[in-house]
């Protein structure tokens, strides 16, 4: 098959699934709707594999497929095509999206089986997959932006899926509005690039990236990339716009796994990796990205420690892990950023689906204080969740270990890195180990705190199979990107496949030299040791000695309250930004609109009405009055004629 046909099927399949399930949205059968939705994504997955195999057959420097369906708009020098670009980066990304997406569709069949709106649900999911493909494959920033907005819409619809609950509907709106702020920045970034480079085609932009680093803050490339990064902070939930993601957990759990952990929220990272030559040319932007990423890592991880909702813990964990990806981007380790994106997609999707399985088994209960000892009731969920836990805390040999330690090493070693970034990263990793172990302890281990009336049960096979596949990927997914120093001690010296694969399209920052192996081993040992200590500490506190942690939180109650209330960031935003704007608008309404603009229009209206009321009285519908007018008119006309 030629490439155009494959790409057409790739796009058409989820779009058709969306339309079919959308038309039959009032049907309640989860199996039929799920079969349509899952099959649509599976076809896309097969197409992605075919494209990937085709890329394999090409020369490493010429691995690209460019499909153009026609011109979208051509105004003066602005030329945008319906063009899609498949290369090393986007082919892997669509594999993750359709592959993980398919597993999550499969999981949803069981999870949503009791829901009346299941057809609508699957149509939204397919709509999301379609837009995500547009985002990833679009060959210009405008096409990318179309997908970017499309996934935002799908996210809004799915967060507010149970919109009869006002709080959930509000969460959807919050996500949408916060993303709007980021999108505005993204648009400005696009404008800057169009004005200065005259094109929005991603490949052309990348080839035009200056080779001389821009050292000022107000250079074209620095400003443009900063604004694009502003867009990424919205979509990928970084400081200061991360606040929507934890609330987004109001949606169905598989949605959290697909959109708010594995795929959509990584769009910002993907965009930066996609435009890496431009970002490399702007060291100041990269510094901002690294600092914001590192701060987000620590902030989100610390909030995660004090959350009691199983999904909220995972949500803050996602924000924190996204911070790692941005940290990697910021220090110029784009391959590593993508590597972490991939492993995170596996283990975080796994953990979200695992939490979905727990919530399903607990009949909707999400509070981990009311769980405990679930290992006995949900053995398979526990086993798979444990794989995700081992991966995220960075257990050597699991996928998360390879990607996270590579990020930490690069943040220390890269010419754009700094030891402070490494310290923040390690603090984040230590906290990650703590809150994830806490989550494991409170949910699966220790004494059961489950209400007597509740009988937790294991999930059906359609929900367990995705868990098994993702668990396997979480364990072995890291072996495509083994860091060099580890591969040297492994038998057969396996190469870093991912780095090799990305080598033609991802540039490295200038001045990057080979690192000192002893140093790298030392730092790796330090971070693993710290994570291990905090894991043991968490285990001791939450399983062996639960009263100690209670006493401890009592002692530091003010700090504990602050953390568990998420540092009052939402309240700060409301106090300093949202409410003043609302008050300003109210005043504008009450004084400018009502007292001035309305007055003016009323006055003009009254004038017209007054002048009209006189003329209106002449035309009263009375026949004789009209005859009188004719008579008077005749007399006047005749007397004028006679007096002349």
């Amino acid at each position, binding site marked *: 098959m030629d490439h155009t046909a494959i790409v057409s099927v790739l796009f058409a399949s989820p779009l058709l699934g969306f339309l079919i399930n959308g038309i039959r949205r009032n049907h309640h059968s989860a199996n039929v709707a799920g079969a349509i939705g899952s099959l649509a994504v599976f076809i896309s997955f097969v197409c992605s594999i075919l494209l990937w195999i085709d890329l394999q057959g090409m020369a490493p420097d010429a691995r690209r497929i460019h499909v153009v369906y026609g011109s979208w708009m051509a105004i003066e020098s602005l030329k945008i095509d319906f063009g899609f670009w498949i290369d090393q980066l986007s082919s892997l990304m669509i594999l993750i999206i359709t592959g993980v997406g398919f597993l999550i569709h499969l999981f949803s069949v069981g999870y949503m089986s009791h829901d009346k709106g299941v057809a609508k649900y699957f149509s939204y999911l397919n709509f999301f997959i379609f837009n995500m493909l547009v985002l990833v494959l679009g060959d210009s920033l405008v096409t990318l932006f179309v997908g970017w907005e499309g996934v935002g819409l799908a996210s809004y619809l799915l967060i507010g899926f149970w919109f009869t609950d006002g709080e959930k509907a509000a969460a959807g709106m919050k996500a949408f509005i916060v993303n709007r702020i980021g999108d505005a920045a993204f648009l400005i970034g696009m404008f800057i690039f169009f004005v200065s480079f005259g094109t929005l085609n991603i490949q052309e932009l990348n080839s035009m990236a200056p080779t001389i680093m821009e050292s000022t803050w107000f250079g074209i490339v620095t400003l443009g990339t900063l604004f694009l990064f502003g867009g990424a902070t919205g979509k990928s939930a970084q400081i200061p716009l991360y606040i929507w993601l934890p609330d987004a957990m109001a949606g169905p759990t598989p949605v959290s796994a697909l959109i708010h952990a594995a795929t959509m929220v990584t769009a910002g990272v993907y965009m930066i990796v996609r435009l890496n030559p431009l970002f490399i040319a702007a060291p100041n932007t990269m510094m901002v990205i690294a600092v914001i990423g590192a701060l987000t890592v620590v902030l989100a991880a610390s909030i995660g420690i004090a959350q009691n909702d199983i999904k909220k813990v995972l949500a803050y964990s996602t924000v924190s892990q996204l911070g790692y990806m941005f940290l990697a981007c910021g220090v110029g380790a784009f391959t590593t950023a993508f590597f972490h994106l991939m492993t995170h997609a596996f283990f975080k999707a796994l953990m979200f689906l695992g939490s979905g399985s727990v919530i399903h088994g607990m009949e909707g209960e999400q509070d981990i204080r009311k769980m405990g000892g679930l290992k006995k009731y949900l053995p398979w969920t526990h086993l798979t969740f444990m794989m995700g836990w081992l991966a995220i805390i960075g257990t050597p040999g699991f996928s998360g270990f390879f990607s996270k330690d590579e990020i930490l090493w690069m943040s220390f070693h890269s010419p754009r890195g700094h030891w402070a970034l490494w310290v923040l990263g390690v603090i984040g990793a230590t906290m990650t180990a703590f809150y994830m172990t806490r989550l494991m302890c409170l949910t699966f281990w220790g004494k059961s705190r489950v209400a007597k009336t509740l009988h937790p049960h294991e999930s059906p096979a359609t929900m367990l199979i995705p868990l098994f596949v993702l668990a396997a990927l979480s364990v072995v997914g890291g072996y495509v990107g083994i860091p060099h120093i580890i591969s040297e001690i492994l038998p057969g010296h396996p190469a870093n496949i991912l780095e090799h694969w990305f080598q033609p399209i991802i540039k490295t920052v200038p001045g990057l030299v080979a690192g000192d192996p002893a140093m790298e081993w030392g730092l790796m040992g330090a971070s693993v040791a710290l994570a291990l200590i905090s894991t043991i500490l968490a285990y001791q506190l939450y399983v062996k000695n639960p009263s100690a942690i209670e006493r401890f939180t009592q002692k530091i109650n003010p700090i504990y309250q602050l953390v568990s209330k998420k540092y009052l960031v939402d309240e700060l935003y409301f106090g300093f930004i949202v409410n003043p704007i609302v008050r300003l608008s109210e005043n504008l309404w009450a004084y400018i609109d009502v007292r001035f603009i309305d007055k003016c229009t009323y006055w003009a209206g009254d004038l017209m009405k007054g002048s009209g009321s006189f003329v209106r009285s002449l035309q009263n*519908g*009375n*026949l*004789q009055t009209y*005859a*009188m007018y004719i*008579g008077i008119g005749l007399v006047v006309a005749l007397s004028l004629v006679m007096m002349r």
Partner: protein
Amino acid sequence: MINADFIVDVGISHYLILSAILFSLGMIGVLLRKNAIVMLMSIELMLNAVNLSFITFSKYNSHIDGQIMVFFVMTIAAAEAAVGLALIVSIFKRYKEVNIRFFEHLKG
């Protein structure tokens, strides 16, 4: 202008003044009366006032055209009276009254 001659010698201005008076009376009747039959009568009066002036000018100009015209006017007056009375009868059947304001109900 009004002197003994004027009263004794009846000429063209007498006829025309009479005609104008009759026409004005008819017009006032049409404008002010509410009874449809009286209004119809007033219209007849106006038509006949016009007829009078036609005949006057015909006589003084020694020209037959004005008198021919009068026949036409009388024919039309007869037709008009027929139509008008028919309308008045149907209005009366409906409202038991022939006030002109009921004619407003005829509009679509």
